[in-house]
């Protein structure tokens, strides 16, 4: 499972690593072909993140037929409008004169439909703004402790300016009291002690950085770039956390050494630490507390990852977790030493700047976490990625990846053609493996990986 960077001469091999760095939506590309980039160099951004769309039933508000909407428009698609600016005016003279439609917010007119009589106005967010708190309980004329039960929108939901977010009382407007949000954003907190509701406005510019040190070799118009560099690439088995980078620091001497709390000192802040086998629960907590950018180790305890990182790993798709420390497990869960050759390769890279990404997707189209150590000035020969031969044959070194011999390594001594019964009673295709301890065991074929 682990792609092993072993080579005959050194402990690792350098290959040409290519990374496509793309925006999720069309935007602006900031780098040029041939540019040398650092991990933090911003290579593309969306100048303005598409904000919340406001769908205005314009024809209804103006009291006109939908097909007349275009004729009534004072603005056209693509126009930027300000709050309270008149964007449409009815052609008919009514009892109180012509009706005006004012823009409820700042934004860009994205669509005008004569079929449904609707206008789509995209609210824009240009800069990061501080969160806003307002006394919702006061507006609602209720006790703070009762506020949560009157809320129509809950924490984490997106709200638009002037949207009703809380309502007290049932029935007609006369009998109910409502509270409206003063700004657009996401509800960050509903405080039942103070009665305040906090609206966060986490609308940042969406940017894409280079992720690794290298050269821009290709520009993808309006989307991003391709960054290339000669680099060592190692894949793990499971990871949690986003892309990050930092200097590697090996904390243990052997691949089977457990990473404990006392090894993680304050000065490791901002570094990517490397352990050998298992990382203890305390050590993981310490790495988080110290502020390590990343932790690369053999294995960890599943429950502890859930508990200490507060993440859900249920469906095996990770990489978007908002945690400060990216965790990469080279072997999986439980107690298991890291693959010796991988450990030696990482050890040889000690002190070098690495880019790591915990993103894992075990389902088809698999993504496994990666560690990339670029060598921008590398002049030597580059390795070509090798496709692993899938057939298991006698003499091959394998590792057993399921109980009861989990983690044991050995050599295949026979590949029986007929299926054999194992302890469960199932008849399955098997292998005979001579373990390093000298014992020969029978294991189901799917339970080994080529070492």
């Amino acid at each position: 499972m682990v792609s092993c960077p072993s080579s005959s001469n050194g402990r690792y091999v350098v290959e040409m690593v290519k990374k496509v760095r793309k925006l999720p939506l069309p935007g602006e590309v900031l780098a040029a072909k041939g540019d040398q980039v650092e991990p933090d160099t911003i290579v593309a951004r969306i100048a303005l993140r598409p904000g919340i769309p406001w769908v205005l039933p314009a024809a209804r508000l103006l009291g006109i037929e939908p097909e007349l909407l275009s004729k009534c428009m004072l603005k056209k698609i693509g126009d930027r409008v300000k709050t309270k600016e008149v964007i449409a005016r009815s052609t008919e003279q009514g009892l109180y004169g012509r009706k005006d439609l004012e823009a409820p917010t700042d934004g860009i007119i994205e669509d005008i439909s004569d079929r449904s009589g609707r206008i789509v106005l995209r609210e824009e967010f240009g800069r990061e703004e501080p969160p806003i708190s307002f006394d919702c309980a006061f507006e609602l004329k209720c006790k703070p402790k009762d506020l949560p039960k009157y809320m129509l929108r809950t924490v984490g939901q997106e709200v638009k300016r002037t949207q009703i977010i809380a309502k007290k009382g049932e029935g007609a407007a006369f009998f109910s009291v409502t509270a409206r949000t003063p700004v657009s954003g996401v509800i960050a907190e509903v405080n039942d002690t103070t009665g305040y509701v906090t609206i966060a406005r986490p609308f940042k510019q969406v940017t894409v950085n280079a992720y690794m040190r290298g050269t821009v070799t290709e520009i993808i118009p309006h989307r991003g770039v391709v960054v290339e560099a000669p680099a060592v690439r190692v894949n793990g088995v499971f990871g949690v956390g986003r892309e990050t980078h930092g200097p590697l620091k090996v904390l243990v001497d052997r691949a089977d050494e457990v990473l404990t709390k006392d090894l993680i000192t304050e000065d490791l802040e901002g570094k990517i630490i490397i352990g050998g086998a298992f990382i203890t629960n305390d050590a993981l907590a310490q790495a988080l507390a110290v502020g390590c950018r990343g932790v690369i180790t053999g294995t960890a305890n599943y429950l502890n990852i859930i508990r200490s990182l507060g993440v859900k790993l249920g469906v095996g798709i990770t990489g978007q977790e908002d945690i400060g420390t990216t965790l990469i497990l080279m072997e999986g869960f439980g107690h298991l030493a890291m693959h010796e050759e991988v450990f030696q390769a990482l050890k040889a890279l000690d002190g070098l700047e690495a880019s790591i990404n915990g993103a894992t997707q075990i389902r088809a189209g698999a993504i496994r976490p990666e560690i990339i150590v670029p060598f921008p000035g590398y002049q030597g020969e580059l390795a070509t990625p090798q496709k692993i031969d899938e057939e298991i044959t006698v003499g091959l070194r394998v590792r057993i990846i399921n109980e009861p011999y989990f983690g044991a390594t050995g050599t295949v001594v026979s590949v029986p053609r007929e299926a054999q019964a194992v302890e469960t009673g199932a008849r399955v295709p098997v292998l005979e493996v001579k373990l390093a301890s000298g014992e020969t065991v029978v294991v189901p074929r799917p339970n080994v990986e080529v070492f």
Partner: protein
Amino acid sequence: MASGENVIQSILATDVGSTTTKAILIEKRGDEYRLITRGEMPTTVEVPWENVMIGVRKSIRRVEELLQRRILDQSGKIIRPKQGDSGVDYYVSTSSAGGGLQMMVAGLVREISASSANRAALGAGAVVLDVIAVDDGRSASEQITRITELRPDIILLSGGVDGGSVTYIAAMTETLIQANPQPRFGGTYKLPLVFAGNRDAQDMVLAIAGNELDIHICENLRPRHDVENLGPAREAIHDLFMNHVMAQAPGYGELMKWVDVTIMPTPGAVGRIISVMAEQYHANIIGVDIGGATTDVFSSFEGIFTRTVSANLGMSYSITNVLEEAGFDNILRWVPFGVDEERISDWIANKMVRPTTIPQTLKHLMLEQALAREALRLSFAHHKSLARKVEKEVISAGWRTQQQMFKSAGVEIIEMVKLDMLVGSGGVLSHAPRREQAAMMLLDAFLPEGITQLAVDSIFMMPHLGVLSTTHPDIAAEVFDKDCLVRLGTAIAPVGKGKDGQPVGHMKLEIPGRPVIDHAITYGELRRFELGVGQKARVTITPKPQFDLGEGKGKAITADVEGGLVGVILDARGRPFEMPTDSRARVKKLTEWIETLNVYPLEYVRLYQEEHRVRDVEGEKGGRQGGLMSKLFKR
């Protein structure tokens, strides 16, 4: 195809699953078509291979290895037609690798057109990412934001009765366009949209969205409020799945050239064979296919076919999600020994990161089967909530109108007492080392009521036969009956609550040529009566007043039951079923059931019970609902 049917001697079928690729060989022996052999190898859609054809060839090579004959030529191509002892005449395949088919569904009224569209998409074998409807509680702007986020393979839009108003369909189509949805596999092709709504709105949908989306028009799936017509939409989705989705996955181009019939999504093929079966046997059938990533439940109740998919409940890729959704307590209640939660969770997580491994020890097999019970239970609960039928609408005045209108949203159709047959499929059920294990998993997860026949798919070949049935239904039906379906027996489960040891009723079992068995049923017992495959018996049960077997409380029932590899299972553990809350009592009960049904070798069970003693402090087990997160972060 009819002309070629006579000459077909040998059929090769593969199913490219998310975990394994399975090849089967069917041949004509004498007058009948029979399954000859089967080869299974890991699917190779992932790195380092990234080409499904490697797995397909390897599985075929496995078949060659087992039969000692050639199917592939030197260049790795199938020899066709059969020449002497090498090659095959016909090749078909299904696929669920590459994450299957992901769809977004849009309709007008959530409970009417949108729910029908949802059923059509599920029935076609899709994973439904979201259902958007005018009345789904979201504002148009929220819907736009949501649609933009989704990356579906296909969009299904429905809504409106034929001849009805088109205004809302226009608005919904505009919402879709304003959101500018993008296909999952990049922007090299236009995102396909299947429109199955008001026929008067077809031109309008083309006019609004024709430039941005690849529109495919098919018949309205809800032409009237009281009529549901899901077939055409399902077919349209199948076609698009092949041409747009599969074509993007690595290696499928070659596979598509190999096959004689278009590749079907695996769930679509399984659904097809279940419908065919229900028709053939005139029975209410529930089928379940528990896979590595997803669990599909199919039901055919009173002629209405429903399929649901629990996208995140499975035995490998999604196994930790089973743990999170069901919680430790619910899983461990099925394990007859004490377990260390930390070690167990690590083992489960390793199964997720190394999805192709299989349990080697009985301890891990018991754990895997405990997880399977919970995955099945949760999937079935999901299915029950979605399996609905559209009732004939009666328009009447006054207060009843609303009541009748509500019915157009559908009424639940699954009634466990009316279930005739329960069929299990998927690795954990089909490959269970003992058939008794499969029977127990089905009993514990589905809790059938009254009299229900149990069966499993012998070696997981329902998908193969499903796709084969599209061109050669007779061959598919013959092989299905003779080789695919393994009859486990019949379960008899009285409905009602009581106390352990309390009399439930009296059972009389008449097996031709054997003395009549008279048995006094006591509450809490699980018993097995031998009745072999193909044998039939007459059973008469006279329940006590508070128990029901389908005829009403206290009413006697007489029925003919079929035997099987397990026989007749009397399950008097009560419905609704409750597990003893005390750990020791629970383990005692489990051991008793294991012994009665010979589920696991008892010496190993005792060994593990010695090794992993049940802790006294475990407290309440079972019953409690709620996920793992709630347990970990309990205040």
